[in-house]
């Protein structure tokens, strides 16, 4: 009886199931919701993929897990590329994941959104951290590809706006392997050397994959840590990269970045010349105003002097009237006379001054006469 029964060990059966399952399914694409995400200390990623009715265990080994652009979170709807096999020790069938795509959008898009959200929360985009762009930079650092239209456009615009500008180009890879490290390194170089006081970080248009270095955290942090203000101009007007959010100023295009980084010299010269004319005009306006004021002052002075003279004249006249009242002639008119001794013509007020025989002159209100002293009478009488 026993010879007719084929008895298998658990291991044999499990191995047969594994081989059967592996050969039956091959490579699979499976859609579902992620749950129970767990990263083991060795770097493997474990999770469960489920829908309303069923679930299946998934494992993504470290080498594949490291290629993930975005962070896998519970509740995400994803499409995985995997093969199915059996973990023989536990007799557990599970999906061995090669890659994961978020459902509905690309993984880069999701990675972009995740990093953007994380850095925003951390405050890297805050307006408070934005450094002012110098008005007239002494030297401009340009980080971009050494070849292509971008550097030519930037230099052309700079030349047009300010013919004697100073610039230092730091050529970098702007896409592909190693680009993010080169870009971050260029920013650090300018910060170490301090050869420039403003930086333009530029790249021409491209796909999200091509622009990707500008969405990398290492570049975002280099921009954030830069002590030198950075103007970003990545891709086309409609492209926004993480670098654009962190930079101090975002320009829609590389040419526009060049316009924002330096003023138009001719405009400045015209402005200064106009200030010079304005200065002259203001002074010229001011001087006639002063003449006018001087005239007013003189007029006022003349007025004052006239008043003063009049006042003095009035004073004089009143004094003169007083004086007139004291005029001796007026006394004589009332019948008094003045007698003088001759020849000295000394006015005589006392009899004692005279001797008999002295000649006298007596002045009356009208005319005078000469007489001589006949006798002297004392005032005692």
């Amino acid at each position: 009886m026993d010879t007719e029964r084929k008895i298998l060990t658990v291991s044999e059966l499990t191995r047969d199931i594994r081989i059967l399952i592996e050969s039956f399914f091959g490579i699979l694409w499976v859609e579902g919701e992620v749950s129970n995400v767990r990263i083991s200390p060795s770097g493997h990623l474990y999770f469960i993929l489920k829908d309303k009715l069923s679930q299946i265990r998934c494992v993504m080994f470290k080498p594949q897990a490291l290629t993930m652009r975005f962070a896998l979170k519970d509740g995400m709807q994803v499409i995985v590329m995997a093969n199915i096999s059996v973990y023989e020790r536990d007799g557990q069938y599970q999906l061995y994941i090669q890659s994961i795509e978020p459902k509905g959008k690309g993984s880069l898009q999701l990675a972009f959104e995740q990093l953007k959200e994380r850095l925003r929360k951390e405050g890297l985009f805050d307006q408070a951290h934005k450094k002012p762009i110098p008005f007239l930079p002494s030297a401009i650092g340009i980080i971009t590809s050494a070849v292509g239209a971008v550097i030519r456009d930037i230099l052309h615009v700079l030349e047009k706006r300010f013919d004697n500008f100073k610039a230092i180009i730091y050529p970098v890879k702007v896409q592909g392997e190693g680009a993010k490290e080169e870009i971050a390194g260029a920013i650090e170089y300018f910060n170490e050397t301090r050869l420039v006081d403003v930086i333009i970080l530029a790249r021409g248009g491209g796909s999200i994959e091509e622009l990707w270095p500008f969405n990398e955290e290492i570049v975002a942090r280099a921009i954030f840590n830069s002590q030198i203000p950075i103007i970003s101009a990545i891709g086309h007007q409609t492209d926004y990269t993480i670098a654009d959010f962190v930079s101090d100023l975002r320009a829609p295009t590389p040419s526009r970045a060049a316009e924002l980084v330096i003023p138009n010299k001719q405009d400045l010269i015209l402005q200064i010349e106009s200030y010079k004319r304005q200065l002259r005009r203001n002074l010229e306006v001011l001087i006639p105003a002063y003449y006018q004021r001087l005239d007013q002052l003189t007029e006022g002075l003349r007025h004052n002097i006239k008043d003063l003279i009049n006042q003095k004249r009035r004073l004089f006249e009143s004094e003169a009237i007083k004086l007139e009242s004291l005029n001796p002639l007026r006394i004589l008119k009332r019948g008094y006379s003045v007698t003088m001794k001759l020849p000295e013509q000394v006015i005589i007020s006392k009899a004692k001054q005279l001797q008999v025989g002295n000649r006298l002159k007596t002045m009356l209100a009208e005319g005078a006469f000469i007489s001589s002293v006949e006798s002297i009478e004392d005032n005692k009488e």
Partner: protein
Amino acid sequence: MKFEESLKKLEKIVSDLEEPNIPLDKAIKKYQDGLELANQCLEQLNAAEKKVSICLKDSKGRVTLRSFGADKEKQQ
């Protein structure tokens, strides 16, 4: 002084001089200062010479600067 500061100062002087009651001696002083600032600004704009350099990295990662314009002219 930085160009921007000079320009701002110049703007201030121009507006100060618009004040009708400014004493004449002050006005003349301001006019002279303003003119001097304006000329300084103009000089500053033309002070630098155009220079475009490019960073070149050697095999050890050291960066040296080379003139970019001259390089291009040689190629032409």
